[in-house]
Structures are given as C-alpha cells and as structure tokens.
C-alpha cells in the first residue's frame, strides 16, 4: 500500500484559484445534486443512505442512515436538522477548513439531508470562536438563497427550508448532541438523559431532530449522486468512504489528509505523508482520534483478527486507517484528530494538560464527571509541580474507573479514557517522575515550575 490522498470532501480545499463564493462552487458543478435530489422520492434517498453504511464523522461513528430511520415521523411534530459545527475536540480541525473554504458544499449537504428527512428547518451550530466562519456561512447562505437553493421552493420544487446559523456558547460540551440542543434552545448546554431525550424523538424543542457533523453532511450529496451501494464499496466495507485525518503534534508536516478508509496504515500516514518525526527524535505515542480517545504507545503490539479470521500481530504503525481496526486495538478514531508525541514529551505533563482541559470543560451536571475531572486534574498538576506520591498513580486510575460509564454524556468517558490509558501504558514514567522529584526536593520543585505552562 502506498500512502496517497483521495480528496473527495476536501477536493476544493487549498485548490488553486479557489474561493468560498457561490460562483466558484457553481462553476464546479455545485448544487446540481441538490436540484436533482429535490425531485427524487424521500424513501429512496433514505434507503440509499442506509445502504451506504456511512458512519457519522462527529466522533461517535453512528451509522447515519440508521439515525435518520429512527426519526419519529409519526408524532406529527416538525423534524429539525442540526449541523454540528461546534468542532472543539482538541486536535481536531477538519470542519473548520470546510466552513472557511467551501461553505457551499456544507449548505448543499444540509439542504439535501433536510429534503431527505423532510426537515422543517435546518440549523448550523457553529463553534463560538469561529467568528469569521460564522460570517462566511451567513454570507454563503444569503448567496444560496438568492439563487433559490435555500428558502422557499428550493430549485423550483415545493420543498421549502431555511437555515439558521447559531454561534456556540464557547464550550466543549456544546458539541455533544444533546448539550448542543439544550444550548440551541436557549438553556445552559447541559446534556440530557437518554431516555427520554433521544434527539431522534425528543430533540430540539422536544421535536424529532437529526444532529449531524459537518463532514457527515458533506457526504450526503456525494452518496445521493453515486448511490449507497457504490459508496459502501469504497474502502473498508465496515467503515466506507474517506476520513480526514488531522495530524497535529510533533511531526514534520502536520496537516489534514483525506484518505480512503483502510487505504494506508498509521505508519504510512505519519512517515510518508507527514514526513516522520522531527529531526533526531522518535515517535513515542499517538492519540488517534482527538484527545478523548485512548492513547497508543508507538511500540505497542496488538493481536487482531483480520478479514479471513486469522489472528495476527500488528504494531501500532501497522494499524490500517479505519474505524474498525482502531476499535480492535482498544481505542477509536473519534474525530480523526491524530495527536503525535515523540520522545521529548513528558507523558505526565501531557496528561496534566488534557486533564485540565476536561476539568474546565465538564458541564458540571453529573457528579462523577464534575468532581472526577477536577480531581484528576489536581492530582496530575500536583505531580507535575513536584508533590506527587507513589499512591497517586493507583488513585488516578481508580478515579478514572469510577467515572467511566456512569455519566450522562460521553464527555465523562472521554475524560476518563486518556487517564486510564495513559496511566496504565506509561506507569513507569509516572513512578519515575515522582521518585526523581522526591529526591531533588524543594529547589527543583521551584525550577520545575518556573517554566511550566499550566
């Protein structure tokens, strides 16, 4: 396998003489799929979606066709479509480029999806910090409305749908779908309990709602064009399509790479496309899917079953880039944000950084996450400052275990996984740091803390 990019969703990103205007998009055949879509029966479109086996690109990887199927169409309430553009997972910034450089692709995707599920109104919930992105989207929607792609009687059909753009409240949980819906309806972004608040049944304003990621929605027109069957054959059949891998951290060429699923391995991506580690360094660990997923040691080995059912041993760098393979290695691709750490990185500091993020971002609604994130963050901070105790290692693990699976939303788990995996995979490093600091004592603690970031 040779590492190469397959640019479909990112076909316009960074292209020569490309800009975000509607004229550019139209000149590349834009909106033609929408005008065909609004003439096709809805059942057919939803069936195509189911056949495509497209997995959501927001992090959870839930099949999109299934999500649409679960929408409560019998309730008589309006159905809403919400585009989740609250991208705030650390290490992830794939949606941002789409918003800034190709907003019309998103709008076409939203309108195709809205038509397919017969949405009464579509929303884009955009991360609060993307101020320019907000302006670009507003501008693009205005352009599209003028050309009759948004608003009344889209493309001459009898289907009408508006898009409202809402800026996020600047917090990570706003990206969690039920938290997003609370925030969108004017409340604090508190995730809601499921049951009864499954978005497909009791979503926005207690009406059935489909929440989809920006990238997922960009796939919708593509799938409607090529057909679900054809799409499902693209790449790994369990996770068809492409993924946009956002590589950040200590590599030569960090950036975003769109790669067909299973077309290359993690090692190929990092060495061939990203140019390998910085001069004179070695890879030490990667977090494969945004900070919330479990970390992988670069020298780890996994025993996984391949397609023919044979057990085989793979190294971290051999893991093929698709959801399924990472799952088998005990982690997940999440939002495809790969964070690379090399031998200069102090794992305790890295974890302290992440823990501080989660402690800051926990919405504070449910007990284990509210108190657990704060506790873990204080422990790691203390270790970094030189006051660690050997029992802290076991304590960290125990706190994370006590959070995992007992919270309202997945943030609690996403906050526990880094600690769980980090502490168990780099245990020695923790002990070593604690012992070393104990030995050097007071002055070292001061020195140590004078350059610390957090």
């Amino acid at each position, binding site marked *: 396998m040779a590492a190469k990019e397959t640019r479909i969703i990112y076909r316009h990103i960074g292209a020569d003489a490309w800009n975000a205007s509607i004229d550019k998009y139209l000149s590349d055949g834009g909106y033609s799929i929408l005008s065909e879509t609004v003439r096709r029966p809805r059942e057919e479109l939803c069936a195509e979606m189911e056949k495509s086996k497209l997995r959501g690109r927001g992090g959870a990887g839930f099949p999109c066709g299934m999500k649409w199927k679960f929408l409560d169409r019998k309730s008589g309430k309006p159905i809403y479509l919400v585009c989740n553009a609250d991208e705030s997972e650390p290490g992830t910034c794939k949606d941002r480029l789409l918003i800034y450089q190709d907003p019309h692709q998103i709008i076409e995707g939203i309108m195709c999806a809205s038509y397919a599920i017969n949405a009464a109104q579509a929303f884009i919930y955009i991360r609060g910090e993307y101020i320019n992105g907000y302006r670009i989207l507003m501008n693009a929607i205005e352009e599209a409305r003028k050309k009759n792609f948004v608003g009344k009687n889209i493309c001459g059909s009898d289907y009408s749908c508006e898009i409202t753009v809402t800026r996020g409240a600047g917090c990570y949980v706003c990206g969690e779908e039920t938290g997003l819906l609370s925030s969108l309806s004017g409340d604090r972004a508190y995730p809601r*309990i499921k049951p009864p608040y499954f978005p497909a049944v009791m979503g926005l304003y207690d009406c059935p709602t489909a929440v989809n990621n920006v990238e997922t929605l960009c796939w919708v027109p593509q799938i409607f064009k090529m057909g679900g069957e054809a799409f499902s054959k693209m790449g790994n059949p369990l996770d068809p399509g492409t993924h946009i891998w956002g590589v950040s951290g200590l590599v030569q060429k960090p950036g975003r790479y769109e790669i067909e699923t299973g077309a290359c391995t993690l090692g190929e991506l990092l060495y061939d496309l990203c140019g390998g580690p910085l001069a004179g360094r070695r890879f030490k660990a990667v977090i494969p899917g945004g900070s919330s997923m479990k970390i992988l040691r670069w020298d780890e080995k996994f025993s996984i079953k391949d397609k023919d059912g044979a057990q085989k041993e793979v190294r971290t760098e051999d893991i093929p880039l698709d959801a399924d393979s990472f799952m088998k290695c005990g982690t997940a691709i999440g939002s495809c944000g790969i964070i690379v750490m090399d031998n200069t990185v102090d794992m305790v500091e890295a974890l302290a950084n992440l823990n501080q993020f989660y402690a800051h971002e926990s919405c504070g609604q449910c007990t*284990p996450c509210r108190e657990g994130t704060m506790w873990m963050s204080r422990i790691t901070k203390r270790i970094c400052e030189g006051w660690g105790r050997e029992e802290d290692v076991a304590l960290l693990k125990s706190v994370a275990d006590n959070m995992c699976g007992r919270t309202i939303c997945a943030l609690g788990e996403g906050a526990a996984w880094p600690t769980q995996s980090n502490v168990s995979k780099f245990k020695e490093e923790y002990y070593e740091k604690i012992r070393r600091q104990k030995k050097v004592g007071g002055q070292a603690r001061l020195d140590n803390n004078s350059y610390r970031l957090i």
Partner: protein
Amino acid sequence: MENEKVTVNINGCNYEVGAGLNVLEACRSVGVEVPFFCYHPKLKVAGSCRMCLVTIGTPARDRATGELLKKEDGSPEISWMPKPAIACGTKVSQNMHVVTDSEFIKSCRESVLEFLLLNHPLDCPICDKAGECKLQEYANTFGRGESRYIENKNVKPKKVMVAGKIMMDSQRCIECSRCIRFCREFIGRSTFSFTKRGSKTEISVYPNSDNDSNYLLNVVDGCPVGALTEKAFRFKMRTWFLKVTDSICGESSAGINVRVWSRNGKIYRITPRRNDAVNDMWMTDSGRYIHYRFEAKNRMSVARIDSSPCDLGYAAERCLEILKLGKVAIVANAWQSVEEMFLMKRLADACGAKIYMISHVGADDGKLLSADRTPNMRGAFLTGLLDSYPPKDFKGLGAAIDAGEVGTVLCFREDLKDFGLEQKQLKAANIIYCGALENNISASAKICIPLRTEFEKNGSWVNRQFRIQKFNMAVQAPENTFADIDFLSFLLSELEGSHFDAPSAEDVRAEMAKSIVAMKDAVHIPASGLPLDSSQFASVDFPEEDAMHYSRQKK
C-alpha cells in the same frame, strides 16, 4: 393502566410492581432501597446525581426472529446492559431484571459519595440540616468512611440571603437541581440557577429576580443537603430533638397536610407532609408561620367575668346560667373542628339559638392558598350549621340585637367588632367570648372562656375537596384552658340533660356517623384523609377557584 402490574425481578426475586413506575419507585414499593439525591417524585427527572445507579437486564431476543431466547433450563435469557443505568430515569417493563446489591453497584454508590464529599465543607456541626440530611445519611450507609482527597477544597459563597427567608450556602450544594426544577415547574418562574462550570458550578439566584413567591420555602424541604436553610429556623433547634406531629394547615380550605415540629410545648417549624391527593409535597410559606398567631403574648390565658380573672369552672357555670335565660345567638367559626361543630349544632338546638357565621375570603392563588381562608367551611355545611355560603359580616346579628330578639351572644373566636357589630349593639347584649386569643371584644365581654388552639387539640377538618382530614395535638395546652369539646359537652349535658362525659374527638365522630349520612364512614380517618359525599351541596356557591387537585363544581 393505573392498576396494571408487571413482573420485575429485583435481586433475584420476582415482584409484581405497578406498570409505568420507574425502577426507583418500583424497588421502593417492594421495600428495596435505592439511594437517590436528585430524584424527586413530583419533579421532572434530572438524572444527574448518579446515586441511583443499578444494573438492568431485559429478556434477550433473537436478532433475526425477534423471539425470546431461553436458557437450557427454560428460564429466559437476560441481556444485561453493559453500563449501569439510573433507576430514577428508567421505566420498568415486563420481566426486567434489576440488581441493586452487587459489589459493583456498591462501588458505584461509594464512588458517587466520595465525589460528592470531595468539595463538601463537612460543616455538619453547624448545619441545620444535620440529622435529616441525605448526604449525611448515605455517607454513613454507603460511603467509604475516609477520604483519599488531599487537594484543597473549592471555595464558594456562603450565607447568601434569598428572598429574605432562605439562607443559601453554595459550598454545601451537591448540584442536584431540585430547587431549580421546583421553581421552574411549580412556581413557574426561575429563581435559582447554576453558574460557572465543572466542579466550580455554583447554585445562585438570579440577580434582582422578584422571588416573592409564597412557595419558595419548599426548596428548603426539597434540598437534600443544607445548602438551602430556612432563616426563621436557622440555629434554633437540632432536628433530632424535635417531636413530629401530623397535622393539617389551617390557613385556608386547601387543607394542606403538614408536620408540626415541636419541643417542650413550643412549635419550632411546620413542614409539608406528602398527600398526593391534596398538596403533593408542597405548602405555602405563609402557612409555615401560622403558629405565630398563637404566641403567648396574644393568648387569653385565664377565664374572666366582667374583666376580672376567675376560676374556669366557675366561669363555665355562669355561662350556663346566662344561656338558660334564652334569646341566645351563637357565633360559630370555620376553624372549629367538625366534631365541635356537631356539638355546636346540638347546643344551638338545645337552647333554641340561631347560628351566625361569616366567611373569611381572600385572593385565590390557584395553588394551595384558596379563597376561603378558613379550614373547615365544608364541615359547617355537613354538620348543618350552614345551608348557604355565609355573608362577610355580622349585620344580621346586629339587626337581631336591635330588634331585641337576641339578648346573649355566645361567640367563638370571631371578632364581632371588626366584622360589623356596632358598639351599642355589643353593649345591648351579654357577650360570652370563647377563644384562644385576645381580640377586640374579649376585653369588654361579660364572660371570657379561654380555649385551645388547633395545635393543642385533636380533631378533623373538611377541606375544599370535601375530604375530611385529621389533625393531632402537637403541643400541650396551657393550664386553665378548656378543650372546645369539653366545654361544649359540659354545656350540652346541662342543657340537654344528656350524659356526655368529656368525649374524645373520635367518640364524637362515632356519634356523628350515626346521624349524618355523609359522615357514616368517617370515624377512623386514614392519614391521607377520606373524601366525603358532597352531592347535596352541589348548589352552594363556594368561592374557591380551580387549583391544584381541585376543580370548581360546574353549576
């Protein structure tokens, strides 16, 4: 639907529980305790404290055929959920399996308590909630005993006054959101809210919010910890020293079920008691302070004849003599218990007296403070004291005095002067005043008989729903006062010649059951009260408006 049952297996035993219950209530209904903080039976489920986690399994089905799978021995195969679920937010279903006693669930509870206690100030020794605090109780029962936390605790605002009657301490708050939900759902207006995020989350009050609601203090009862405490009760008494008596609130005809907390003859606070047919779990703030009416300084403490103190028995004898002279009018009131009213009616018959009553009407808040500000107007109808809704004043009685038809007024509790009797009319008649409190006419009455307050006697009232409810004696009456029933039965036995020896309220009800059809079952009244047949009063124009658990009868 209501009586439908489903079979649920809890910790290995099968139970029949009500369909539609949540797992927490279902467990409770069969005596299995599931600890909880944020759940409240009368509020929406928040599901945020995670204290009630249980393991849940449902019968497994074959994916292809949808048929129930069976184990080898024929029992149904159970598919267990991989993660624990909240009992408060999960509805029971047929053949559901619930585990609440495993080591795993034990560790879940232990960890939630550990998390809650991390930043809790642990100021139980100076906290009013101590003794009835859920956190304290559960920490004792389910906690791990010692803390593994060596970091500094969060600091949050303490001693914040809310609406002049609640002391808020955010540091004690466990973020259960009950207070927020109560204000939103019951009062209909947000007063409390969370501010900040994560572990720094604070319970706060909207600045400048008009939180003048008469129901705000319910959040104090609802708060599982001491984050919200009542200013009036603050530092007054440790809860475990208090004696609890079930009673009924006399504030209005809503008939709110309450508990009276007292020690050594002093009432310290009044809190609501659950009655799902009457007041759910709420009461008015004003009703909590109703016992202030009966403070010692307002009490009539000794019997008087012509303003000079005298022996109680002697005063009663004199009373009798005057009544025997005839031309008597009796002023009754709707704070009297049904039992007293029944005797009153007989007394009126025995001395040929006419009964006068007035109404006390105020604004109806559509919830638990009804327009009729007396607790027992329906009782007066049932016992035959009234046949139409009474007027607002005593003008009729005044006219009867002017016409010379009335020479003696035997007045219970009411202030004749405030309600339309003129000075010269008061002068023209012998006034015998019987009541617990001094008022405008007690000073000038010919005879004054000190009686007891509703907290000092047993009895029952009939509320706006025609539900008869019992109130019990909470505190000992002062010496030299008559229980109303004793006084009335003394008069009756002399006037009627019947032998009626100091009966208890229950005895009177037994008597009543014989002569009043609607009361035939009302001898032993259950704790939740007993609805009575009200069909014969359908045409009476009662002033109450539609409210919680009450709808005005259509005419």
